[in-house]
C-alpha cells in the first residue's frame, strides 16, 4: 500500500521545495548563465521624453576597446524587423479599432520617453559596452513633451504619434447609458468622487535580463529571459518581431526573481540580444541595472476617474457612473489596452447588487514609460474606486459604512450572479468574510483604541474594503471576442516514470509563487506520490508544451486544472492496465491515492506496478493500449474565478509630522480551496505589502518635461519591513464551481483589497479635520498639509 505520511496533499502546509536552492543562493537566474564567447550589450537610451533623432554617430564608439558592434534603430529597420506587438485590441465606442501606433524595438526617427532605446553597444565586457554606449553621439531635436494625461489631451498638445489624434488610444465604454441616466433621475442621493490611482513602478527584486544565442550549425536561436511566460515571448518575438520560426527559437525563463506583471511583456531588449546574437553568431547578454529598470520596465496603474453613485432613500445602490482616463505611456505594452477596460470596468459591480453601471474609459498616450498590468491589473483600480465611494456614500447618507455594504451585498443564495458589466460570479459569501474580519480585527472595540490613541496625541483610524476580483481570465473564445490576440488556456503534462516518480510539465511559470510545491501537492493528493518524488518543470519552451504562463492569479485555477485533467487520463489508463494485470473488468477498478483496487476485494496494484507494466509491457493489453504512462491535457476555463473578501486596516497618524503608521491589518479572503495554507498566507501578505506600498508610500513622478523624478530608490519609496504592520491572514472558503479543484487564486487579492482599506482608515483617522477624500500615497507631507489646512479651517 502506498501511504503518504506525513500528509502532503491538498490542505497541508508543506515547506517550499524550491527554498532549498533559493535560501542557499543556488537559484539559477538569467544573469547566472554565461556562455563561451559571450558578449555584453549596453543600451543607449533617450535622455529626453520627446525628441526627433536627426542622426546617430556610432563611429567613435565602434572603435573603442573590446567593441564588436554598435547597432542602431536604423540598422534594425534595414533588416525589415517588426515592431513590438500589442496582444489586445480594444474597439472604440463607434466600433472602430483603437489607435495602435508602431512600437519600434529601437527608435530610429523619434524617441517618446526617457529610457526609449536608441542604439546598442556590444562588447567583450559589460563595462566596455557601457563605455561605448556613452560614446554614441545621438543628435536630438528636442520636442515639447506631454508628460501627463492632462497635458496630452490639451488642445495643441504635442503629437506623440503621427496619425493619433489628441493622443487618444481609444474611447471605450461598457454598460447601458440610457438606463443608467434613468436610474440617476430617480435617485434619492447621488454621491460623486474624483479619484487618482497613482502610478507605480514594479521593482521586482531581480532586474530584467536577457541572453541571446544563435547556433550556426542548426540555425537555432535560444533566448534566456526574465519572463513570466516564455511561450508568449517566443510567439510574439518569433512571429512578429524577428520572423524566426518557432521551431528554431527556444525561450527559457529559468528562476525568475519576482515579476508582479512587469515580466509578462515582450520587451525590446529580448529582441535586441536575440537579433544581435544572430548577426554576430555569438551569445549576447544584457542585464538591467536598477536605474534602467525604473525607466524601462512597464509601469502600473495611473488612472484619473470621476465616479458617481446613485442611491435610494434606504441606501440601496441604483446605479454607478464612471469616467476614467487611463495612461498608456508612450507605446502600447503587450497587454496594456485590456487593463483599464476588461480587467477594470467589468469589476465595477464589486460585491454589490448594483443593477446598472456605465463606464467610459479614454486611454491616453503620454511621453512616459509604457503602462501595463501590475499585480492586480485593473482590479485594484476598480476596487479602490468602489470601496472609497462606498465610504464617502456612507458618510453622506449617514448610514454606517458596514451597514451600507451589508444592504448592498449580493446574497449567498443569488449565485450564479450576473452583473450588469458582463461577468457572472459563480460563488462567494461576502457577509461571512466581512463578519469574520470584523471579529478578527475587533472592529467593535475600535473606539476605545481611538480614545487611547488620542490620549497619546495620535489620530487613530480604521477602514475596510469588501472587495471582489476576477482571476484566471477566460474562456479563450470570450476573451478573443473582446480583443485578445491569444488563447488563455493552460497545459499540463503528467509523466509517470517507470519506477513511479512523476515529472510534471506545466505552462505556468513560477517566479516566487511556490509552484514547485503547490503543484507537487496536487500530484501527491491525487496519485499518492510523495512530494519529494514529484518534480515540476516549467519555463522552457523546449521542454514544456505550448502554455500561456503566469499572471492574473491563474496558475492554480487554470494550470492546476490542466494537471488534474491530465491525471484523470493517467488514472483512466492506469485502470485499464490494472484491470488487465488483475484480470478484472475495468469498470470494477477503483483508484484512490496511488492504489488500484478491484472493488470489494483485497486485490490491489500500486501505481508503480502499473508504471512498470506500462514501460515494460511484457504482460500488457498491447492490442488495445499503447505503452507508456504520460498524459497531456489543455484546460480552457469556462469562466473567470472570483476571489473576494474583506480587508481591514488600522492606522495611527502622528499629527505633528503627518506620518501614518500601520498598526494592524486583517485580511479574510475567499480564494476557494486552499492547497497550501502557508503559501497562501505568504502570497496574501506579499500582496498586502504592495497594497500598503501603493496606499502610503509609492508613487512615480514625472516633471512637466517628462523627466522621471522618482527614478531611484532614493526617491521612490518601496515598502520596507518596518513600514508594515502585523498582518493577520485568514481564509473563508466557498468553492469555485467550474474548475476541478474549486480554487480561485490568491496571488493578487492582497494588492487589490488593501489600498482602499488603508485610505479609508486614514480618512477615518482624519475625521475631525473635515477630510472627504485624499489621493494615494498618503505621505507624511500630504497628511501634514491636510491637518494643517484643517486646523486653519477650524480656526477661521
Amino acid at each position, binding site marked *: 500500500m502506498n501511504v503518504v505520511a506525513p500528509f502532503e496533499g491538498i490542505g497541508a502546509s508543506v515547506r517550499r521545495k524550491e527554498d532549498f536552492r533559493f535560501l542557499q543562493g543556488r537559484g539559477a537566474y538569467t544573469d547566472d548563465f554565461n556562455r563561451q564567447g559571450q558578449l555584453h550589450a549596453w543600451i543607449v537610451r533617450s535622455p529626453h521624453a520627446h525628441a526627433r533623432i536627426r542622426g546617430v554617430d556610432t563611429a567613435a564608439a565602434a572603435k573603442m576597446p573590446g567593441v564588436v558592434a554598435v547597432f542602431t534603430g536604423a540598422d534594425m529597420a534595414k533588416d525589415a524587423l517588426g515592431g513590438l506587438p500589442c496582444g489586445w485590441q480594444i474597439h472604440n465606442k463607434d466600433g472602430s479599432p483603437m489607435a495602435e501606433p508602431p512600437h519600434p524595438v529601437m527608435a530610429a526617427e523619434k524617441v517618446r520617453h526617457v529610457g526609449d532605446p536608441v542604439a546598442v553597444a556590444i562588447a567583450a565586457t559589460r563595462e566596455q559596452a557601457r563605455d561605448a554606449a556613452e560614446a554614441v553621439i545621438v543628435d536630438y531635436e528636442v520636442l515639447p513633451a506631454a508628460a501627463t494625461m492632462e497635458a496630452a489631451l490639451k488642445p495643441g498638445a504635442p503629437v506623440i504619434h503621427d496619425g493619433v489624434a489628441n493622443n487618444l488610444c481609444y474611447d471605450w465604454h461598457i454598460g447601458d447609458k440610457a438606463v443608467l441616466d434613468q436610474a440617476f433621475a430617480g435617485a434619492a442621493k447621488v454621491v460623486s468622487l474624483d479619484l487618482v490611482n497613482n502610478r507605480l513602478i514594479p521593482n521586482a527584486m531581480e532586474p530584467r535580463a536577457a541572453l541571446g544565442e544563435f547556433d550556426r550549425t542548426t540555425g537555432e536561436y535560444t533566448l534566456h529571459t526574465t519572463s513570466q511566460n516564455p511561450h508568449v515571448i517566443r510567439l510574439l518575438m518569433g512571429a512578429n518581431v524577428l520572423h524566426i520560426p518557432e521551431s528554431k527559437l527556444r525561450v527559457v525563463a529559468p528562476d525568475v526573481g519576482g515579476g508582479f506583471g512587469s515580466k509578462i511583456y515582450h520587451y525590446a531588449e529580448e529582441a535586441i540580444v536575440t537579433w544581435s546574437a544572430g548577426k554576430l553568431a555569438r551569445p549576447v547578454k544584457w542585464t538591467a541595472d536598477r536605474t534602467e529598470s525604473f525607466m524601462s520596465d512597464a509601469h502600473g496603474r495611473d488612472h484619473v476617474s470621476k465616479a458617481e453613485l446613485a442611491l435610494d432613500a434606504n441606501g440601496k445602490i441604483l446605479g454607478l457612473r464612471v469616467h476614467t482616463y487611463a495612461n498608456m505611456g508612450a507605446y502600447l505594452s503587450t497587454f496594456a489596452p485590456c487593463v483599464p477596460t476588461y480587467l477594470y470596468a467589468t469589476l465595477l459591480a464589486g460585491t454589490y447588487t448594483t443593477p446598472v453601471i456605465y463606464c467610459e474609459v479614454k486611454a491616453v498616450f503620454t511621453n512616459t514609460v509604457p503602462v501595463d498590468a501590475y499585480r492586480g491589473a485593473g482590479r485594484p483600480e476598480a476596487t479602490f474606486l468602489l470601496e472609497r465611494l462606498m465610504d464617502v456614500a456612507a458618510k453622506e447618507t449617514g448610514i454606517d459604512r458596514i451597514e451600507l455594504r451589508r444592504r448592498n451585498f449580493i446574497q449567498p443564495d443569488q449565485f450564479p450572479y450576473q452583473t450588469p458589466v458582463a461577468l457572472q460570479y459563480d460563488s462567494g459569501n461576502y457577509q461571512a468574510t466581512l463578519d469574520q474580519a470584523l471579529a478578527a480585527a475587533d472592529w467593535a472595540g475600535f473606539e476605545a483604541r481611538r480614545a487611547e490613541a488620542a490620549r497619546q496625541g495620535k489620530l487613530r483610524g480604521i477602514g475596510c474594503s469588501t472587495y471582489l476580483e476576477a482571476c484566471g481570465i477566460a474562456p479563450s473564445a470570450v476573451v478573443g471576442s473582446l480583443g485578445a490576440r491569444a488563447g488563455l488556456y493552460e497545459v499540463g503534462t503528467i509523466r509517470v516514470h517507470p519506477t513511479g516518480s512523476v515529472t510534471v510539465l506545466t505552462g505556468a511559470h513560477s517566479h516566487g509563487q511556490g509552484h514547485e510545491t503547490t503543484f507537487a501537492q496536487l500530484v501527491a493528493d491525487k496519485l499518492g506520490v510523495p512530494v519529494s518524488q514529484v518534480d515540476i518543470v516549467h519555463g522552457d519552451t523546449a521542454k514544456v508544451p505550448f502554455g500561456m504562463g503566469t499572471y492574473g492569479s491563474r496558475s492554480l485555477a487554470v494550470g492546476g486544472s490542466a494537471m488534474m485533467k491530465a491525471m484523470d487520463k493517467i488514472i483512466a489508463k492506469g485502470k485499464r492496465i490494472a484491470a488487465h494485470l488483475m484480470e478484472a473488468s475495468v469498470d470494477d477498478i477503483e483508484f484512490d491515492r496511488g492504489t488500484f483496487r478491484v472493488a470489494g476485494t483485497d486485490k490491489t496494484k500500486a501505481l508503480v506496478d502499473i508504471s512498470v507494466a506500462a514501460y515494460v509491457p511484457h504482460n500488457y493489453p498491447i492490442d488495445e493500449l499503447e505503452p507508456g504512462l504520460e498524459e497531456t491535457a489543455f484546460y480552457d476555463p469556462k469562466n473567470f474565478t472570483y476571489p473576494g473578501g474583506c480587508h481591514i486596516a488600522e492606522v495611527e497618524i502622528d499629527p505633528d509630522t503627518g506620518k501614518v503608521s500601520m498598526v494592524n491589518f486583517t485580511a479574510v479572503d475567499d480564494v476557494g480551496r486552499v492547497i497550501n495554507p502557508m503559501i497562501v498566507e505568504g502570497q496574501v501578505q506579499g500582496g498586502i505589502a504592495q497594497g500598503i506600498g501603493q496606499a502610503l508610500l509609492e508613487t512615480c513622478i514625472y516633471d512637466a518635461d517628462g523627466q522621471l523624478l522618482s527614478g531611484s530608490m532614493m526617491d521612490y519609496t*518601496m515598502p520596507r519591513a518596518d513600514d508594515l504592520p502585523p498582518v493577520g491572514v485568514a481564509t473563508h472558503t466557498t468553492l469555485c464551481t467550474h474548475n476541478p479543484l474549486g480554487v480561485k487564486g490568491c496571488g493578487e487579492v492582497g494588492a487589490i483589497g488593501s489600498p482602499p482599506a488603508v485610505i479609508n482608515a486614514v480618512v477615518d483617522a482624519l475625521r475631525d479635520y473635515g477630510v472627504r477624500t485624499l489621493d494615494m500615497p498618503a505621505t507624511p507631507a500630504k497628511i501634514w498639509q491636510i491637518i494643517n489646512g484643517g486646523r486653519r479651517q477650524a480656526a477661521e
Partner: protein
Amino acid sequence: MYDFAYHKPATVADAVKLLADPDAKAISGGHTLLPALKHRLNKPSALVDLSGIAELKGIRKVGNAIVIGALTRHVEVATSAEVKAAIPALAYMADHIGDVQVRNRGTMGGSVSNNDPAADYPAAVLGLGATIHTSSRKIAADDFFLGMFTTALEPSEILTAIEFPIPEKAGYAKMKNPASRYVMAGVFVAKTAGGVRVAVNGAGPCVFRQADMEAALAANWSVDAVAGVKQAADDLNSDIHGSAEYRAHLVTVMAKRAVAAAG
C-alpha cells in the same frame, strides 16, 4: 564605474601626497562615493583608500572631550561605552544612521567630509561645537560647513579626527525621508560650557545653527521654549517628498523632540 588607480597608503602624510593629484579622491567607508562611481557620476583618476592608516582610528577621551578618529565606523560610535557615557545623543545618532549595512561600513570622517545636507553627523559636529582635526590644522565646526557638499577642507587635506566637547546635555531627533531614509529634517540640541547650541540638518542645503531656538533655550531649557519658535521656510529644501514649509514645520517638531530626548 570607470577605471581608476588604487592606492592604500599607511600614513596620513603619504595619503596627503597622493591627494596632491586634483583628480584623486579619498575613500573610507565608500557609502557615498561607491554608488556615485557605480553610476558613473564621478571619474577620479585614483582612489586613495584611507582604511590602512592606523592613526585615523579609535575613540578616546581627552580631557573634557571625546576624540573620534576619522575612520571610526558608525557602529563603533553607537556601541562605544565612552561615547554612550559622555555624549549619549551622539551614540544615539550613530545608532540611527541609515541601516545596519551603512553603520557597519560608513565612517564619521567620510560623512563629515562629504557634508551631505541630509547626513546625520554634521548636526552633531555643529551642535556640539566640535573641532575638526585635519592633516594640517584644526578647524572649528562653525567654520567648517560651507555649503551643500562643501567644507573648509582643502583638496589634499584629510580630516583625521573630530574632537567633541562633552556637553551638559544633548539630544537629537530627526524625520527621515520616507524613500531614502536620509534626514528630511533633524535637530541636534546641546547645552554646553560655551552656551546652548542648536543645529539643523536635512531641512536646508547645509547644516545650520538656529539662533532663535538657541536664545529661547538659553533663557529656558524646555520643550515649551522651542515649541513657539518657528523656522523660516525661505532657504529650506523643497522636493517631491515635502515642501520647504513642511520642513520648516518639522524643524520645530524635531527641536521639541530633541530637547525632550536631552532631558
